[in-house]
């Protein structure tokens, strides 16, 4: 399949954002583990794995469109030194990702690439879920206080 104009470029930008997010979440998950927040460790690691699956899908799709996936490039990884900081930088990363995906969806509609559009829409749905989760955590901290919130993160759910 030959790609429509501009599509590969957009896919590579999303891929870069994804690869950056994988590493950021990976380190955040590990830091939470190191601090003893087992629940957060698992939640954040899951997010990292989600991004990895997206990266895999993007690379596959770029190749399918006869493009060259760029796995060399990375944006700035933003590491938070505390749990609230981590939530803040992760939220920013997810919001930037959503903007990229929305632009991608709009562009694909314009050039009539509905397969790519469909894929990006699926990814945008995941990002929405991530944003929702992070915002909930921030809201919780606001309501119950950081210490109460953190003490609930020591045990894993279920």
């Amino acid at each position, binding site marked *: 399949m030959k790609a429509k104009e501009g599509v590969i470029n957009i896919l590579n930008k999303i891929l870069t954002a994804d690869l950056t997010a994988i590493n950021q979440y990976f380190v955040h998950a*590990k830091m939470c583990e190191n601090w003893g927040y087992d629940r957060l460790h698992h939640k954040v690691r899951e997010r990292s794995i989600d991004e990895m699956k997206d990266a895999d899908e993007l*690379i596959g799709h770029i190749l399918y469109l006869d493009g060259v996936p760029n796995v060399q490039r990375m944006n700035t990884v933003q590491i938070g030194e505390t749990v609230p900081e981590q939530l803040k930088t992760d939220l920013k990363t997810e919001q930037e990702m959503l903007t990229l995906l929305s632009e991608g969806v709009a562009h694909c509609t314009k050039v009539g690439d509905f397969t790519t559009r469909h894929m990006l829409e699926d990814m945008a749905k995941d990002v929405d879920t991530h944003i929702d989760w992070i915002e909930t955590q921030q809201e919780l901290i606001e309501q119950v206080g950081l210490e109460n919130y953190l003490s609930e993160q020591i045990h894993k759910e279920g």
Partner: protein
Amino acid sequence: MKAKEGVLDLLYKVVTLELTAVHHYLLHASLCDNWGYERLHHEFHEHMTEETTHVSKVIGHVLYLGGRPDVQKLGAVSSGQSVQDLFNADLKLEQEDVTLLRDAIAHCAKVSDFTTRHLLEEMVVDSEEHVNWFETQLRTIAQVGLENYLGEQIKK
């Protein structure tokens, strides 16, 4: 835990190399998938999973030692036009990895950090297995010919 001298710097290098390997295999798995080599696609995926586990362990250990893992840096990721290109690039990377791990193990022994040494020793076992796997593939290609080899990679 406070790290012994030089240990964190070596672990940072290991993180960069292992991350580079993850990106290598992520790309190479997809390329093989795109070319229709299902068996190789799965092999590369497994390699990627192993390298991800390594990254996870090393980052965890760096944090335990009070260090700050650098996940921003990445070595050169090679692509390729053929399966052999991929194998050659991967073999080179794994050989670099083995060399780095061996140096790090020797250093840990010198400064008596046996926990880190133990971790690295486990990793070097995997890396040597990877080197062996790539060498085997390249040797098989030399013996049976590229077309026969590739024909066997279509099905898992």
